[in-house]
């Protein structure tokens, strides 16, 4: 049972790490701000989501699990807002503010 959970954790966290890596490469390689943001949000949302999912398989009580999910949701919220704000300034003609 615990072995199966461990395997699930390893798979999910590794997948999350992969998205972080991909996001970082995208951030460095993409040509303009908007596509960089696109890459970055993938790392944040999916990568962090998968890492959180993986950790949920390691039971440490309901409270700890809820905390992990809350962290993910808050990051989503902050990420989405900041991305939108940056995108607005980065859009041609959108820098006036």
């Amino acid at each position, binding site marked *: 049972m615990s072995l199966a959970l461990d395997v699930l954790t390893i798979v999910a966290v590794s997948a999350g790490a992969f998205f972080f890596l991909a996001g970082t490469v995208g951030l460095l390689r993409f040509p303009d701000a908007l596509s960089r943001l696109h890459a970055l949000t993938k790392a944040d949302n999916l990568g962090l989501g998968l890492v959180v999912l993986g950790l949920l398989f390691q039971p440490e009580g309901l409270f700890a699990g809820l905390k992990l999910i809350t962290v993910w949701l*808050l990051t989503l*919220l*902050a990420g*989405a*807002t900041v991305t*939108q*704000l940056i995108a607005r300034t980065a859009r041609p003609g959108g820098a006036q503010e």
Partner: protein
Amino acid sequence: MTDRPLALDIGLAFLVLGVAVWTIAARDTFAAVVGFVAFGLLLTLVWARLAAPDVAPTEAAIGSGVTGGLLLGASTRLHGTQTPAPGEKPGAILRLAAAALCTVVSAGLAAIVLLLPEPAPTLAPQAATNISATGLGNPVTAVLMAYRAIDTLLETVVLLLALVGVWSLAPDRVWGGFPGPRHHADPDGLLPFMAQLLVPVGLLVGIYIFWVGSVAPGGEFQGATILAAMWVLAMMAGLVDAPAVSRRWLRLLLVAGPAVFFAIGLAGFAMAGAFLAYPEAYAKLLIVTIEVPVTLSIATMLALLVAGPPERALR
């Protein structure tokens, strides 16, 4: 202390140094500030590795977060002035001399780190044996609120003086007025939406972090920073305006923390025979009574330090 450092630690140390070099070497000031924020976040990890769970959130919240925000704002406002004038740039000789001097300082400090005595002197046992008299469970809070409470008390005054200093920079015609520019809520924007969603959560988290400080990592500075951040967010999103600096309630809120601290400290003369001494039976109660207004005051000071000097007149 003879165990080898993990590869993780070595990697982290190099990362910290790399980002620090970037912060110093970057041509663009904005980039340097971004480097500094990353530096602060990495230091947070270092504090966790150094078994200092109370310092880590302080570093993240104040050292990296609020300081970073302040510097980012400044670098944006100073944009275009940050290329040094021709006469200002130090010559190659000065740079070489500075590099030599700084290398000597670093090398000397490194040598001293390696020379520090074994076993290391420590006050941990003393802190542990006396902690029962404070009613607290977190030794760092015991140092901050009991053993060295005078430092904490004067530190709140330091923050307050810094704020008075910032306010003193206001032009005379706007004295008593509102700090910073007025932000208006953009009805289509995501920021007001996020602020509405996040502020209540943040307030809860801030209060929790403060409350848990007496027994576990956390405390008034960390909690207060989160509260301040929520206030700043609400101001930036245009949900609330910054308060005018002449408001009596604001002044009261600012001094409430140090004032209660002083009052209970002086009451210590009568209750326990010394300034800032707590009778054992009520120690925890008194400490919490100090911490509540101190947290509120610090949160107010931090938020207003970020908001800056008054820029708009009262009328």
